[in-house]
């Protein structure tokens, strides 16, 4: 039997949905999978994206640890640390090039090296008490990091660049720093080819129906960063907009059954809504966000109405067997319960712990589901949000920068190790099934 990988990927994506809708039994699903073999859509890109995430966590952690400002360390030691970090980043990048490693390595090592360069520049700035604003530091960082992006063909670094350059440009223009504006034009010209290649590849991938999630998330990030830059977030009640957006995403996601069949590829709207639902759940783990929904006079009644409607909808979903995972269906009910008790300080504190745990349970259930169904994207999606939840709580805590930084590094390393472990495990299970078939 001739096996078309593309169609098998599609079939594998559809099976859980058919199963959840009661069209086929779990046994039939397994038999179909065994007959046609297993090809998870976007397996490769799942590994790549989460390798980048791991590198970002470790790099971010390093920046925090050095941001602590070790005033007991001598200048020479600090300078050596800056050098050592960059050398380590260059070592990993050189290994990647020497061994002609794959995309996950290239992207991960480029992000790590570029963050090491940024940390190095920041340490020197801190050690020698250099003036100048943040944009100037970022400008110099981009100047020395762009060859790495070319050589390692790193799209992630290019996305970071896309976010940073407009900020520098606007700052230099606004403050009439003509010499830096001119230099930024050179930087734009220097980066133009890799920018063009990245945009071109995005367009072609988009046409082929791949990488849509990356495109959507990247553009969303660009718009968000510009909105933050223009201080748009300070006008009006942002939590109301966030809640409205959640309601729309939630209804769409449940109706389209996307929460049952998370994949990296496929309908970009579905990918976006499932991503946004998790963004919302993360925001709600902050007590201040909850308070904003509850105590903002202008929109409080509307917020309550929205959550009540959503809770009723979630209740209906529970009665429609296998249509929406129970943990998601119950979520609006839980939020509603929180709104009812939030005026009591003690109950509110307990509620926030419960809400955090609930989000954690959703993430763990995703990891378990992914492991059971040999779906790497489920596993990593769960791991991603679980890691985010953990380090949001660290950020929120009264820990010093060094504590937070170390937590970031540990989570980042854990993430990379789990990435390798699950990828190997699921890949070998897939091979086994394909071999048997």
């Amino acid at each position, binding site marked *: 039997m001739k096996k078309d990988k593309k169609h098998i990927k599609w079939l594998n994506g559809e099976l859980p949905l058919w199963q959840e809708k009661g069209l086929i039994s779990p046994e039939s699903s397994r038999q179909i999978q065994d007959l046609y073999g297993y090809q998870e859509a976007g397996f490769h890109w799942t590994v790549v994206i989460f390798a980048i995430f791991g590198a970002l966590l470790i790099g971010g952690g390093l920046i925090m640890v*050095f941001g602590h400002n070790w005033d007991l360390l001598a200048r020479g030691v600090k300078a050596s640390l800056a050098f050592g970090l960059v050398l380590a980043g*260059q070592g990993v*990048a050189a290994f990647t090039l020497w061994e002609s490693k794959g995309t996950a390595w290239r992207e991960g090592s480029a992000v790590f090296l570029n963050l090491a360069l940024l940390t190095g520049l920041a340490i020197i700035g801190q050690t020698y008490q250099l003036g100048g604003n943040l944009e100037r530091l970022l400008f110099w960082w981009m100047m020395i990091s762009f060859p790495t992006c070319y050589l390692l063909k790193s799209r992630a670094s290019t996305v970071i660049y896309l976010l940073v350059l407009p900020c520098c440009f606007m700052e230099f223009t606004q*403050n*009439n720093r003509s010499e830096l504006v001119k230099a930024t034009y050179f930087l734009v010209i220097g980066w133009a080819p890799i920018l063009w290649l990245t945009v071109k590849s995005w367009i072609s991938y988009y046409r082929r129906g791949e990488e849509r999630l990356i495109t959507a998330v990247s553009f969303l990030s660009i718009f968000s960063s510009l909105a933050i830059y223009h201080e748009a977030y300070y006008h009006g009640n942002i939590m109301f907009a966030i809640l409205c957006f959640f309601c729309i995403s939630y209804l769409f996601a449940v109706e389209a059954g996307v929460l049952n069949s998370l994949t990296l590829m496929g309908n970009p709207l579905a990918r976006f809504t499932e991503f946004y639902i998790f963004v919302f759940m993360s925001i709600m783990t902050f007590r201040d966000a909850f308070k904003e929904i509850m105590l903002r006079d202008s929109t409080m009644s509307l917020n309550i109405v929205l959550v009540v409607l959503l809770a009723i909808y979630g209740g209906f979903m529970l009665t429609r067997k296998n249509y929406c995972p129970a943990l998601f269906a119950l979520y609006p009910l839980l939020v509603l319960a929180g709104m009812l008790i939030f005026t009591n300080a003690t109950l509110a504190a307990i509620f926030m712990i419960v809400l955090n745990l609930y989000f954690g349970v959703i993430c763990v259930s995703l990891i378990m589901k992914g492991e059971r169904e040999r779906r790497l994207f489920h596993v990593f999606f769960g791991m991603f949000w679980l890691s985010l939840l953990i380090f949001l709580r660290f950020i929120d805590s009264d820990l010093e920068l060094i504590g937070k930084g170390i937590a970031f590094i540990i989570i980042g390393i854990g993430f990379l190790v789990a990435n390798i472990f699950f990828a190997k495990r699921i890949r070998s299970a897939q091979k086994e099934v394909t071999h048997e078939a």
Partner: protein
Amino acid sequence: MKRKIIISIFALAAIVQLAVLGSSIVRYENILTTGKVWKFEIEPVDPYDILRGRYVRLRFKKRKLKVASDFFDAEKYYYRKNGYLVLNKKTDGFTEPLEAMNARPESDANWIKCQFRRNYRNKAEAEVSYPFDRFFMNEKLAPEADKVMRRNSEFMKNNRVYITVRVKDGIGVIENFWVDDTPIADFLRQEMKK
């Protein structure tokens, strides 16, 4: 062959990256070792830099000076104008800005590269924007500095708060931050113990 070329280019890029970092270190170490020492009186405030950590932003007590009528181009709008500031050491050992110049002064150690803000109300006056405007501190000490100094005008009246800057070839690097001849880190630790 292609891989060898890429690795060679990478090696070159890596050397450039290290050279940028290394040359900064060598340059500032050289200034700190051989530069001439100047004392500037300051009024600190305490902000935060997301990448470099906590720092005390420095407001200089002596930051206004008279400028020649041709220092700013009358037709042009300036946010900040680049120029050279000639420094003067007063009898008490502290520094005051003496003269703003468009051209680089003769080989003398008493000047720094600076930016100047024009005073549009009083065109004969400018405000100096010193290139060393922040002092990075431990994240515990910086808020303490803010508490002790910025919100305490009595303290600023009774104590001399200043920085020492090493200057060489027009570039200044902060050596330390002092409160009455005690390094600020030591001073704040003593304060925190009280």
